[in-house]
Structures are given as C-alpha cells and as structure tokens.
C-alpha cells in the first residue's frame, strides 16, 4: 500500500546493481583518503568540545589546527599537505569510541591527538593499536601506558602517581603533617591516593581522602567530612568545574589551611571565576614547560592568548611530534609515527620547536631533537613522557606568582 507506482519503475535487478555499486564505492572511496596515498595526510583530533572537559578541548583542537595551517603554508610534510579532521569525544568514553571509529575507519587518520580524559583514552586505545593508528593523549592515569598498546600510545602528561608523589613531598616540605586529597572518581584517583599515603606515612604524616562524584552543585558535606580530619594542606585532584565549587565551599566552611592544585585547574581563568579571598595563598604546580625553541611563543601567536594551559601546550606538541615522525620516516602512517617518534624527540640532534623547521633539517639529512611547549618531550619505552613536576606558583591577589 505504501509503495507508490513510480517506485515500481526500479526493478529488482537495478536495485541489486545499485547496491553492489554503492557497496563497492563505500569500500573504495575511503582508500582515496587513506594516509598512505598521495593526497593530503589525514590526522585527527579527539578533544572534549562538550562535557566536563569542554573548557580545555576547544583550545587543544585550535592549537593543532594552527600547527597544521602553518605547516601547510610552508609546503606540508614529505611533499603532501595535511588534512585535519576534528571530532568531539563529549568527555564520554562511549561517544569517544564512536568518534574514534569514524576517524580510523572513514577518515583513515595516521594519528589521533588530544585525547584528554583517562576513561576516553582507555576506551579508544584498543581501536588505535589494533588499526595501527598512533594515539597521543594528555590523560594522567598510569594504567593507560601499561596497556598492551604495541607502542602506539604516547602520553605527554606526566603519570598521575608521580605527580601525587612530588606534590606530597612539596606539602611535607612546607611543614604539613596532616594532608588531605579531594578528587573525583577517575582511573587515576585511587592510585594517586595510595602513592600519596605511602610517601606521607613514610615521613610520619597522616592522609585523609575523599573521592567525590563529579558535576554536583554542592560539596558542603564532602567538605565537612574532609575538615573533620583537620587537614593542614589539601591536594585537589579534580578538574576546574568541580574544584571551583570545592574552593568556594572550603572558604565558606572557614578552612584556613593551605591548598595545592595543578596548573591546568588553577589558571588565570579559574582565578577570574572564583573571588580572590577564596584562592589567596593557593599553590599551583606545573610540569616542565619550555620556550627554548620558541614553541610557547608560537602557541600564543596561534591562539592569541597570553598564557596557554598545559593541555594546549601538550596538544601543540602532539601535532608537531606526529608530523616530524612521518617526515623522518618519509611515510604517512601510524606505524611510521610509532617507529620514528623517538628518533626526532630525543637524542643529541638540533633542537627544534616547530614541525616545518624540523622537516627541513631532516631533508638536509640532519638529526633533530624536538623540544616542545610542554617540555623536552622525551618518551620512555612504554610511551610515557619523562618530564615531571618542576615548579610551584602561589596565588596572591588573584595573580600567579613564582614560589619554588
């Protein structure tokens, strides 16, 4: 009844033929865009443009887009232009897997960059190593690089356990003996608390901890619970939206002790959001950053901002590392990136901070050592960056000032 008379003009044979042709085109067309062809080299970003990580993801994607535009302007890599495909992981593993599938199966990218949340990275990692796609992430969970990833994962964020240890040493060095940790439920929270407790108890100090549920409108009762342990120093292990609530609730509760958090949480934007009285005296820790090669200046000019955050710096490095590894291999694929990344990121070659500069040197037969905006970008055998927490700032009157 619902079939119109005109539809009868399409015979079964025509329909079958069209289906076969359609199927073949679906199978063949993506090959034309494949990284190993002669057209533009496809690379992808999978940053959180919506969800809990949304306040980082846009800048992360823009940093990669800026690198790609600048490299294309200078002729591309190995004689080919770069094509960037950006997807939103929605800070959600299930959405991340769908987007990664599209990047790998449809766009045929050589690398996926800027994956932020540990849960998302953990979910998309098997797709990457099984398809031979390089995966660059800024996720902190130590478990990620312990996966059987066949060398395809590179993490530019120092491992969270090491960060927890170094921040604990800092708090102990400041004379605190009653420490506390407040963090959301993530793959890195429990290991961070365990490492913190181990270091603190060895020094005769006590640790209290609260693992909270993220994205709540109030943490008054969680704050009451942690303050019952009378902490002298509280370590924030979560992200900016929840830490804003915690800092406000701690201030309202009359907490007079000290707090410390990472630079990707307590940054200039955070300090504009929270009234100064609640952030006064807060400590902020940084992982290694470097402007030795002008990489930080280049990000500032790309994004037109004064103070790029750590994740933006790391994602800028992802793009440069992937492009340089392909330039060194003279081949555009995830395997080429895996096999050549350490040849361009560490060693005694000439230091470079931008892919086009490095590619030119590689063409001249010279060795290079990429030193990025997030630090030296040297990687160990499981893909972890070897740089660590190096400095602390303190907040005074809403401004970040150097401390240690």
């Amino acid at each position, binding site marked *: 009844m619902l079939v119109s008379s005109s539809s009868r003009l399409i015979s079964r044979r025509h329909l079958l033929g069209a289906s076969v042709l359609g199927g073949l085109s679906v199978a063949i067309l993506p090959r034309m865009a494949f990284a190993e062809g002669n057209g533009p080299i496809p690379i992808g970003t999978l940053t959180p*443009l*919506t*969800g*809990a990580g*949304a*306040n980082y*993801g*846009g800048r992360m994607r823009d940093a990669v887009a800026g690198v790609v535009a600048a490299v294309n302007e200078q002729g591309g890599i190995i004689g080919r232009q770069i094509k960037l495909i950006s997807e939103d992981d929605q800070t959600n593993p299930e959405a991340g897997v769908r987007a990664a599938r599209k990047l790998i199966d449809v766009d045929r990218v050589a690398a996926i960059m800027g994956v932020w949340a540990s849960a998302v990275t953990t979910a998309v990692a098997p797709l990457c190593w099984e398809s031979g796609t390089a995966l660059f992430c800024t996720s902190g969970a130590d478990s990620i690089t312990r996966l059987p990833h066949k060398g395809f994962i590179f993490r530019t964020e120092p491992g969270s356990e090491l960060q927890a240890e170094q921040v604990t040493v800092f708090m102990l060095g400041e004379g605190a003996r009653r420490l506390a940790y407040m963090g959301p*439920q993530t793959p890195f929270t429990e290991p961070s608390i365990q490492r913190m407790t181990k270091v603190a108890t060895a020094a005769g100090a006590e640790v209290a901890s*609260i*693992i*909270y*549920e993220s*994205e*709540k*409108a*109030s943490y*008054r*009762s*969680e704050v*009451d*619970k942690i303050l019952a342990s009378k902490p002298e120093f509280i370590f924030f292990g979560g992200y*900016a*939206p929840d830490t*804003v*609530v915690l800092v*406000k*609730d701690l*201030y*309202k*509760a*009359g907490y007079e002790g000290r707090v410390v958090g990472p630079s990707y949480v307590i940054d200039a*934007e*955070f300090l*504009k*959001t*929270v*009234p100064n*009285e*609640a952030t006064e005296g807060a400590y902020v820790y940084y992982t290694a950053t470097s402007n030795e090669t002008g990489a930080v200046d280049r990000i500032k000019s790309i994004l037109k901002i004064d103070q790029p955050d750590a994740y933006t710096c790391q994602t800028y490095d992802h793009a440069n590392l992937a492009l340089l590894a392909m330039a060194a291999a003279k081949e555009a694929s995830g395997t080429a990136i895996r096999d050549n990344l350490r040849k361009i990121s560490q060693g005694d070659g000439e230091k470079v901070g931008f892919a086009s500069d490095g590619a030119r040197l590689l063409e001249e037969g010279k060795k290079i050592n990429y030193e990025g905006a997030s630090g030296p970008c040297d990687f160990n055998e499981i893909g972890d960056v070897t740089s660590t927490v190096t400095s602390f700032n303190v907040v005074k009157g809403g401004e970040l000032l150097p401390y240690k």
Partner: protein
Amino acid sequence: MAGLEIVQSLINGVVYGTLLTLPAMGLTIIYAVLRFPSFAVAAHATVGAFAGYVANAVFGMPLLLAFAAGFLVSGLVGVLSDEAALKPLRGRGPLTVAIASIALTIVLENVLRFAFGNELRGYDVPLQRDWMISGIRIGPQQVVNLVVSVVLMLAIFAFFKFTRAGKAMRAVADNPMLASIRGVDPNMVRRFANFFGMALAGLGGMLIALDTSVNPLVGFRIMLPIFAAAIVGGMGSVPGAVVGGLTIGIAEQMSLLVIPPIYRTAVSFGVIMIVLTIRPAGFFGERGN
C-alpha cells in the same frame, strides 16, 4: 559530635534541596499543563545562569535585578523555543515532544557555547564565610537562596489558589476541553505555563551557578536530581516538587554520613525506587495540586 554532624547534614540537605525545588517546580508545572516531561528545563537553567551573569557581571546590576533578568530571559526563551520547536510536534504524542525537548536542550546549550565559549565564569558577588551557630554552619548565600526559593514557592501557591490565571492553568491541566468550553484559551495558558516553568528553571540555574560557576553545563549538573525530585514528589504536583526536592537533597547529603560520596546519584535513584514502590504516583500523585 555525632548529633551535630547529623544536624549539619540535615541543613546541608535542606539547602541543596531548595536549589532543586525551583527547577523541579518548573518541570512539574509544564508537565501538569502540557503533559510531557520537558528535558529542556536543564538548558533553561543554563540560560538563566547566563542571563543573570550578563546582568550582574557585564552590566553591573545588583544581584536582585540579576535574579529578575535570569527569570525573565529564561521564561521568554522558554516560550519562543516551545513555539518554534515543540509546539508543532505536540500532536504526535508526549514521547515525541519529550525527545524533541532533549534535542532542544542540546541546541540551546550549544548556542550558549558559541556565544560565550566553554570558559567558566563567576558573578561579581563577594564570597562570605558561613555563620557558626552552636557548632552548626549556615551560609549567608544559602540563606538568600532559601529565602528566594521559599518566597517563590509561596507566590506560586498563592498564584494557583487565588488568581484567575492560576485557576485557568489548573483548569487546563485537569481538563483542557472543559476549560476551553468555559472560555479559557488553552494556548495562552500553555504559553504562560511554559514561561513560568522555564523562568523558575532559569532562576534555579542562577542560584546553582552562584555556588558553582557559570558555564554551558550548569543545567546538566542538576538534570537528574531535578527529575528525581519531580518524580518523587509526583509529576504534575507543585507541592510534590517542593517535598521531592527536599527529600532528594536531604537523602543525598545525609547518606554521606554512612556511604562514600561517589554514590550520591545512586542515592537519588534509590529514593525514587523506594517511594514509587510504596506510592507509584509519587508523594502527591498526579493531581496533588
């Protein structure tokens, strides 16, 4: 000491519950008149938070005027978005409209994202320490939130009880055809319900953003507890939304005395299960108002 902890948790729960009651009342008013659960209350809570932010932090208005801006702007956006996106689908059943309201939420959230970006923002309001009264702490901002919520709740009760428009809304909620015969214009009443419901959601969003931050996810933070509050109280019942909000707030906060904080959302669902098992229509049923 344990007694103080219990009292403190109870107060924290009341404070948190009052934050939920305004958007929950908005949801339940829209449900009572339009007969579908509008997920768009979350987006309108965010609209209210941003409208209040623009009034307060950009134009320098005092908080009271910013509350008014949040209320009016989210109400107007509620009417316009309903006319444009949901009204044309109303004949296709409540499920279709409910699903369309999810799409509307995503659209509104992303419009705000494009207009303001993903950055966190804060109101130009000084932070105050809590008052300590006999070992119990109470926040000045929470008292303001409580007063605003209670005043609005009383105003809504009075509106439904004593005004012609309120009676018309109740009439349309009970029997749209009969109300129409009696000269009540159902379309105007529906528009009014939308305005009022979304304005309450917007004001609730602004109160929440005062404690958190202004960003495109303000409404998302409270969507589940709002629905939990409305369902526990009984969908369509304004007193039910108040009781439901307080129940969810108190249950979530007091549960932290005995279970880890990561199960707060699970507590909300646990309360829904228990209440609906005992009273399938919620505390005040569908016609409780």
